[in-house]
């Protein structure tokens, strides 16, 4: 596409981003202040280069292509793709722009940042950008600098929200390259409980640079499902920053396909005693797709537990990456932290990079990690084929079985049932010899 050197491309990208950020009208509200902070931080930041450890396996090339900082043309139609049999209250951010909001069940409120007032404005002031700080990650700064608008999702204290909240981060099918920067702050009040189903939709040549911050008050619980099941040309960079109060529970389930670029930067902070985190991830990359999960579990206080389980499959020339960092701070005694990953390579040219990083400053903790990497069992393949299944069907069935341990644990029936055909379709996609 371009013959510019990498350093030049980075320079052009950074300059374009700065110019774009300066075009926003002056604003002294929440949005304006976040943009200003983002702009300053982005200008001071250096974009990741091949020597940046956190980006060792994810080169930013696919994010630098022309047009990925352009605003989306207005008027794109939302592509409603409901999950069959799933009742939800749905929030859509299409091409970076929050769409008109429906009515929510009692205890749930959703407000765009532009429309904040009173107590909500105060809540946002307290938390926004605190977890996902602009100073630490250039793309989080970019999200703030180019923010059109964002959403505050609040669950009132003590409310048990039965109806799942669906959050759609969608790219329209439009042909024009574009970049969008969705921003969401979720606050689950004390003792409240909710289910959030976050879906990343779209396969167009577009850059989605999302930041989601989640604050769980004491005793709150959030079941957070994240589905990214559109492969294709999308560039998806997603920061997810979560903080748990005392005895809060956060359960994250991810089912993701690779795309031209997909990277999740997930940081979960156990900030109150006795908090509990589980993370379950199923990932599949085919052809030349890319899927990078960067996790950081921070145990800041005593008696926290975290369990992470991942299953990743890579076929053809695709690449899967998992960096699992567990940081147990001084004084976080009686922490129990576990990280288990299994990976499956379907091709000799596929690559999976798994790296646990343990940093432990307390002496009375349990911390375990395990990683295995393998291939499909030839005996099992033969067994299935000897019963009439063709090789593709046999491989698919065995690959499903590999992911089943994670996928079967998804807590929402309709989601679990929808995952099967979605993954089957991904497995059935033809193998491409070379990258488009």
């Amino acid at each position: 596409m371009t013959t510019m050197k990498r350093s030049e491309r980075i320079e052009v990208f950074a300059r374009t981003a700065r110019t774009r950020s300066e075009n926003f009208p002056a604003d002294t509200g929440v949005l304006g202040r976040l943009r200003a902070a983002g702009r300053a931080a982005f200008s001071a930041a250096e974009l990741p280069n091949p020597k940046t450890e956190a980006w060792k396996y994810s080169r930013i090339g696919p994010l630098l292509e022309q047009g990925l900082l352009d605003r989306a043309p207005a008027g794109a139609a939302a592509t409603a793709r409901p999950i069959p049999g799933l009742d939800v209250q749905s929030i859509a951010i299409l091409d970076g722009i929050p769409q008109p909001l429906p009515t929510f069940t009692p205890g749930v409120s959703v407000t765009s940042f532009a429309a904040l007032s009173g107590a909500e404005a105060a809540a946002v002031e307290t938390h926004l950008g605190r977890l996902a700080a602009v100073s630490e990650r250039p793309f989080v700064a970019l999200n703030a600098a180019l923010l059109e608008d964002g959403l505050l999702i609040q669950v009132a204290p003590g409310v048990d929200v039965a109806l799942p909240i669906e959050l759609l981060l969608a790219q329209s099918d439009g042909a024009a390259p574009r970049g969008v920067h969705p921003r969401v702050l979720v606050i689950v009040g004390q003792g409240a409980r909710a289910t959030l189903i976050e879906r990343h939709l779209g396969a167009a040549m577009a850059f989605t640079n999302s930041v989601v911050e989640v604050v769980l008050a004491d005793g709150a619980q959030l079941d957070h499902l994240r589905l990214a099941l559109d492969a294709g040309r999308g560039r998806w960079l997603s920061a997810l920053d979560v903080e748990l109060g005392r005895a809060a529970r956060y359960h994250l389930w991810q089912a993701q396909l690779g795309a031209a670029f997909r990277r999740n930067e997930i940081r979960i902070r156990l900030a109150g005693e006795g908090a509990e985190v589980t993370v379950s991830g199923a990932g599949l990359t085919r052809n030349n797709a890319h899927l990078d999960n960067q996790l950081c579990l921070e145990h800041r206080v005593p008696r926290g537990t975290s369990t992470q389980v991942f299953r990743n499959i890579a076929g053809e020339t695709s690449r899967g990456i998992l960096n699992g960092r567990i940081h147990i701070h001084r004084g976080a005694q009686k922490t129990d932290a576990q990280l288990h990953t299994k990976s499956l390579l379907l091709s000799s040219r596929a690559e999976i990079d798994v790296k646990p990083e343990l940093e432990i400053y307390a002496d009375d903790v349990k911390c375990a990690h395990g990683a295995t990497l393998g291939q499909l069992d030839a005996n099992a393949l033969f067994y299935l084929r000897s019963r009439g299944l063709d090789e593709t069907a046999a491989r698919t069935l065995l690959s499903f079985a590999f992911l089943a341990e994670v996928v079967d644990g998804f807590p929402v029936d309709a989601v679990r049932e929808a995952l099967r055909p979605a993954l089957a379709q991904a497995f059935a996609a033809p193998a491409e010899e070379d990258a488009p």
Partner: protein
Amino acid sequence: MLKITNLHATVADTPILKGLNLEINAGEVHAIMGPNGSGKSTLAAVLAGRDGYEVTAGSIEYLGRDLLALAVEERARAGVFLAFQYPVEIPGVSNMEFLRASLEAVRSHRGEPNLSAVEFMKLARATSAQLQLDPEFLKRGVNEGFSGGEKKRNEILQMLLLQPNLAILDETDSGLDIDALQVVADGVNALRSPERAIIMVTHYQRLLDYVVPDQVHVLADGRILRSGGRELALELEAKGYGWLRDDAA
């Protein structure tokens, strides 16, 4: 139905089968016996098309077709069934799902309509009951945590569902107690019909008390050393294999 002519096969470049001839007609049950290392399981593997077994000479004709030209799954769809000596455990794939996928693949090849979920369940449950397998096994992972006897019965369950033209039982009797042997034998006998043929590969003649073969072949050093009727198996039982080899020499 099956005509094997001068079959030579190697495993990792070591010759195992060295000129094997065998002809089986529809309606017949043949037992292939022989000492360890004689090539019995290699023959079963070559018939099913397992990787790593290279046919270096000879031919196998099945229902007028060149069997060796067919892929593993094509053989299965054409009605060849191998009951494994060591059935494979596949955690994460339910037995039910596996049986259904397999039956659909084979039936659709035969031009038969797929069974509805309800019809399939009924059939699977009835066949399980016939083999005294708890229907709960259908819900578990394929062979996952099954005892040796349960695995063998699961093989026969698959065989009865798929209704093959040619069934090859590779040491299906090994590791079975007498009750299980009876159940398995009943299953095999249920499959006997004028349209089908069955090959039983076995080390011991015990199974032949329950499934009476039309012919018995002794395989040694990669060739059929002797063929005969039921009485040959009894003779082997009495005298061992050494007698035959001395005889042949």
